[in-house]
């Protein structure tokens, strides 16, 4: 099966382990990821807040490229990118005058609803299905018997009326994925609370407090690792972990943060290096070694 793939700016270097592991997992599942030719940045939340029209214009350009490349299904791995792609398409489909206004900015206009964009998690759920993933899981993988929590963050499920993926209050698909790998997913109250990573460079104390609460809560429910689906969440929870725990006075501990694709890759028996696990800030080596002995 062939689907379009929109990596987004940060996936090329800042979160290269996410990009690499997504490709590896997709290869195992028989998904062919066709990268958009000559894509540009989606603008995240920043361009929208400077100039909303240009912000939507640059997203619509990506969608127009996908339409030109005959891509019916466009998967984005960065939740901010997938949110921008989905919401621009949604707004253009709803309001025709607005769509014409945006198309006037582009060289090749985009027909609303011709490309269906979604997050990689939704591709796993709707296009592949959990049974097919389960077939590929090998028994005796390093995560078997471990306890983990799924952390969704904001844009994977919210705002519910635009994303239309899962219940925004209690999404469960990532927990199911953790369970089929052989690890045990735990009840996690902070599952959808924001980590604030969009303000990481602007208001660091706020972000540290928000992130620290999430990490300490994960420890309190007994998790050995946190699973995320967003590279910005990983940057806040993983890269800033020490300072965040210090800020909320949570004690002294480390908790590895894995991407969902890395968890699936480990379950499929892929090796440590090919999933880019050595690039995570908090090394998961200890977590994975314990299982071997």
């Amino acid at each position: 099966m062939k689907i379009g793939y929109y990596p987004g700016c940060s996936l090329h270097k800042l979160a290269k382990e996410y990009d690499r592991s997504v490709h590896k997992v997709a290869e195992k599942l028989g998904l062919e990821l066709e990268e958009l030719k000559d894509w540009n940045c989606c603008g995240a939340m920043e361009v929208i807040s400077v100039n909303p029209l240009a912000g939507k214009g640059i997203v619509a350009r990506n969608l127009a490229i996908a339409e030109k490349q005959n891509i019916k299904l466009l998967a984005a791995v960065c939740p901010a990118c997938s949110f921008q792609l989905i919401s621009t398409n949604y707004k253009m489909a709803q309001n025709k005058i607005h769509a014409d206004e945006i198309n006037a900015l582009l060289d090749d206009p985009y027909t609303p609803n011709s490309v269906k964009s979604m997050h990689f998690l939704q591709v796993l759920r709707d296009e592949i299905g959990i049974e097919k993933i389960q077939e590929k899981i090998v028994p005796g993988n390093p995560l078997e018997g471990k306890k983990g929590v799924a952390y969704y963050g904001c844009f994977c499920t919210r705002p519910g009326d635009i994303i239309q993926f899962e219940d925004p209050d209690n999404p469960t698909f990532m927990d199911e994925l953790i369970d089929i790998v052989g690890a045990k997913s735990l009840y996690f109250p902070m599952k959808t609370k924001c980590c604030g990573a969009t303000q990481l460079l602007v208001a660091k104390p706020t972000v540290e407090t928000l992130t620290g609460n999430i990490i300490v809560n994960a420890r309190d429910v007994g998790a050995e690792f946190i699973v995320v689906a967003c590279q910005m969440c990983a940057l806040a929870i993983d890269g800033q972990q020490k300072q965040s725990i210090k800020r909320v006075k949570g004690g002294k501990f480390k908790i590895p943060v894995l991407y969902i694709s890395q968890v699936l890759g480990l379950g499929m028996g892929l090796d440590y290096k090919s999933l880019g696990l050595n690039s995570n800030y908090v090394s998961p080596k200890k977590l994975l070694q314990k299982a071997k002995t």
Partner: protein
Amino acid sequence: MNTVSMDKIIDLNASDPNFKNEVVTEPGGQHLKNCFQCSSCTLTCPVAEVPGLELNPRKIIREVLLGLRKEVLESKAIWQCVGCFECTDRCPQKVRFTEVIEALRRISVRSSDKKLYIFSKEKDKNRRIKLSKEGKRKHSFDKRFTESIWLWGRTWEPEYIGRYLMFGRGFPFGALIGFRYISMILGMITKFKIEFFPPWVSPARREVRKIFKRAKSKNK
């Protein structure tokens, strides 16, 4: 949680009754008048729970509806939102507060006395306000992010983050803020996560610049 001070009496004679219409005409603020003050937004807001911060979505909407233009636009609170869409999701009246606050930020920058607003409408000459410190920081970050896209077609993290850390808070001493991020930056360097060369995608860059140019001329 911050407490609302009750001793301040609002002088409605000094308020601007047209302020709510100004917000409603801004993209994103269309549903503002639906609000019935149930406070769902404030109760779910993760930032409102952080001690020391002033964000209170319900209060901001009420102030906008009352027309307290200066108080809202000069406040720190509108810049403290992290944009997590919890309030948008929970609102029974579909006010979409995250978009409202973006509209407020744009109005705030547009009518500020600083020359900060690029790629968009010209400033209001009258009814100027003074942008808060938080506002200047957040806007300078947004601006540099946008400039990075204009320059390269994609963002190039070392370039815009470096520029923000250097010049975002005033040049010589503001740049010392970079030391707070030193562990993260060192982590990135040791894990080879920093892109040393700009993303060189010329057709995308040219077209993105064209989009920005057209959007700018349209807004005038």
